[in-house]
């Protein structure tokens, strides 16, 4: 399709300073529909800064971010009004936080959490909202009978899966994920990664995922961007960068992963 030949998200020379401290410098990338890009690096690499810039949560010191809206028009994120940006964040985008408690309303039932976005875009039929919530709970492997429980009763892995459901219910085309498996037990991580893989495939999501875990990057992403000290060290096909790392830092990262 000709539509898919245009990138969905374009970053051009993104730079962000925190006073005299460099967040990230001169990052450019293109993301197409259905592509998963992993941004990997260690603490202080600038990967989280980059994610916040791409999601329009931080203003860049230099450079810009452009997004192709549902109507086909590409817009400069910085030129969007607050209302437009909020609407985008609520419909065409998802943002999965590392700490699920920050991405959910902990005192509201699971059904209310998933239904909120629908209600925010004008759904007014209780039965249908509830039905959509039940079907999403099932999809993220949470027992739909628990729809009326608040996520304060859920385990960490369940909360994260609920957060994913909450974000995907409006069928966004682009999802940002910030260390979605961080802090979870290994078996719980595996389950979550499996779910993410299937959802990305089934829904054709474009994803920017920030992670320090190379295994997560290999499992989920098509392309990978390695960052260090705010700069992009290397970028390319995931298996190519991980199997045949060119830069010294990438080689160091890859060789540092403990074998299982």
């Amino acid at each position: 399709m000709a539509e898919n030949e245009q990138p969905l998200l374009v970053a051009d020379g993104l730079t962000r300073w925190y006073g005299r401290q460099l967040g990230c410098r001169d990052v450019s990338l293109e993301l197409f529909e259905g592509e998963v890009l992993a941004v990997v690096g260690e603490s202080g690499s600038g990967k989280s800064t980059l994610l916040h810039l791409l999601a329009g949560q931080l203003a860049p010191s230099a450079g810009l971010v452009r997004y192709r809206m549902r109507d086909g028009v590409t817009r400069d994120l910085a030129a969007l009004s607050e209302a437009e940006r909020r609407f985008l964040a609520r419909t065409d985008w998802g943002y999965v936080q590392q700490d699920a408690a920050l991405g959910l309303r902990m005192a509201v039932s699971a059904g209310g959490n998933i239904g909120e976005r629908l209600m925010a875009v004008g759904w007014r039929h209780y039965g249908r909202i509830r039905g959509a919530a039940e079907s999403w709970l099932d999809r993220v492997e949470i027992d739909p009978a628990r729809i009326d429980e608040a996520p304060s009763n859920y385990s960490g892995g369940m909360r994260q899966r609920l957060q994913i459901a909450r974000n995907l219910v409006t069928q966004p085309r682009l999802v940002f994920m910030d260390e979605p498996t961080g802090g979870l037990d290994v078996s719980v991580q595996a389950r979550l990664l499996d779910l993410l893989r299937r959802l990305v495939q089934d829904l054709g999501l474009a994803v920017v995922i920030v992670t320090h875990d190379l295994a997560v990057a290999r499992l989920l992403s098509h392309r990978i961007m390695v960052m260090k000290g705010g700069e992009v060290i290397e970028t390319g096909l995931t298996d190519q960068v991980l199997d045949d790392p060119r830069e010294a830092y990438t080689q160091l990262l890859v060789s540092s992963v403990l074998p299982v």
Partner: protein
Amino acid sequence: MTTVLEVSDVSKSFTMHLRGGMTLPVVRGVSFAARAGECVVLAGPSGAGKSSILKMIFGSYRCDLGAIHVHHGDERTDVANAGPRTMLALRLRVVAYVSQFLRAVPRVAAVDVAAEPLIACGTEREIAAHRAGDLLARLNLPDRMWGLPPATFSGGEQQRVNIARGLVGDHPLLLLDEPTASLDAANRAVVIDLVNARKRRGTAIVAIVHDADVRDAIADRIVDVTTFAAAA
């Protein structure tokens, strides 16, 4: 017969920054072609660079010099200089790769691992799973194992899942890295049949095979990789 793959004067070396920038040459001046319906076997001792050549064709490794042209339909793509999206599109429908070791994704059932390349092309899940099951059955993997994730399988069982995954689609170029290394005689025979069936369907195949019998059964041409040895 149409040429599907043309490797032209490809060279590669590794630069090991962790060892003070030491350069490890792999291959130099690799040139060969593979045509539709033929199987080219790369021969040579371990370490000669056979796997590296396959990986360069698939795009898992970069090459320093030369070109790797893949012909598909009316188009011709140079893998050596292709960007990530081009490579991904090529892997989807043109080039399939059976690696030496299965990278076992946790929690995914064997039949789903094998069916995945078809599903990625847009085939319905049920049909893809059916085709994958057929291949697994031919490879003598008992169906009670199909629903299990392959992480706990033996080497030979994992390899059969890997082979099914590589052959489930209709990719015109097939890369096989030691497809029979951990298999018993019966299953080696099955793989030979499967490969020959693909050849009859016009698939171009580049394979690394150590077992002489298997090699004789499938190879149309043998390329001696030692002729591409890079100067140390």
